[in-house]
């Protein structure tokens, strides 16, 4: 049985998650360590680890700070899909 239009939209939207290439970008940025990035962003190293593993989606503020430290636009660090 086909699902109602609205339901499929909701399911499709909730399946999307935030992805990032933080680990690769850190290494590309003078092999910056997790600790260095954490200190410059103002979070703990555990939070950087959680973000890299996809276990935590940072707030907009932290996401912008990470992009700023890496000198990249936000869309190159984080993607949604």
């Amino acid at each position, binding site marked *: 049985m086909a699902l109602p239009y609205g339901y499929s939209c909701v399911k499709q939207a909730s399946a999307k998650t935030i992805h990032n290439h933080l680990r690769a970008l850190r290494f590309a940025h003078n092999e910056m360590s997790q600790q260095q990035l954490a200190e410059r962003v103002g979070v703990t*190293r555990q939070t950087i680890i959680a973000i890299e593993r996809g276990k935590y989606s940072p707030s907009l503020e932290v996401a912008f700070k990470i992009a700023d430290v890496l000198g990249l636009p936000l869309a190159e660090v984080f993607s949604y899909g």
Partner: protein
Amino acid sequence: MGSRERSILVSLLLISFLIGGYFVGQTASLLTPNADQAQQFTGLLAPVLLFTVLQIIVQSVMAIVWREGSDERDRLIALTGYRYSYWGLWLALSIVVLLCTRGFFAAGLMLTPALAANAVLFLVAVADGVGLLGQLWHYRMGIRA
């Protein structure tokens, strides 16, 4: 494992061994009709005081040894832990009410002040334990706002 996780794990172990151990050892005595109330009350103070003192000492030492601040993720996990604590409180309250209605009165047990104090400690300990377990779970498995 981060410092916050270690701190939560230590709190959980202290609650399990001190408060949990107390209830495991005292349940039979607490459910005995006409038991000595004064002894029940003083028996309750020992684990509570020991837990409080040990918590202060251990958490202070850990804060000095593993100097690491908290951030938005820690705050989110702590808030989620509080939410789980309310579920723990509800669960513990259900157990206490069930014991009161089915076991206590059938056994001729009166709800004395000492017994009520023990029930309150049980509620708080279970609620706190569930909250801490929830926090540990989210530190391990991740969290999304």
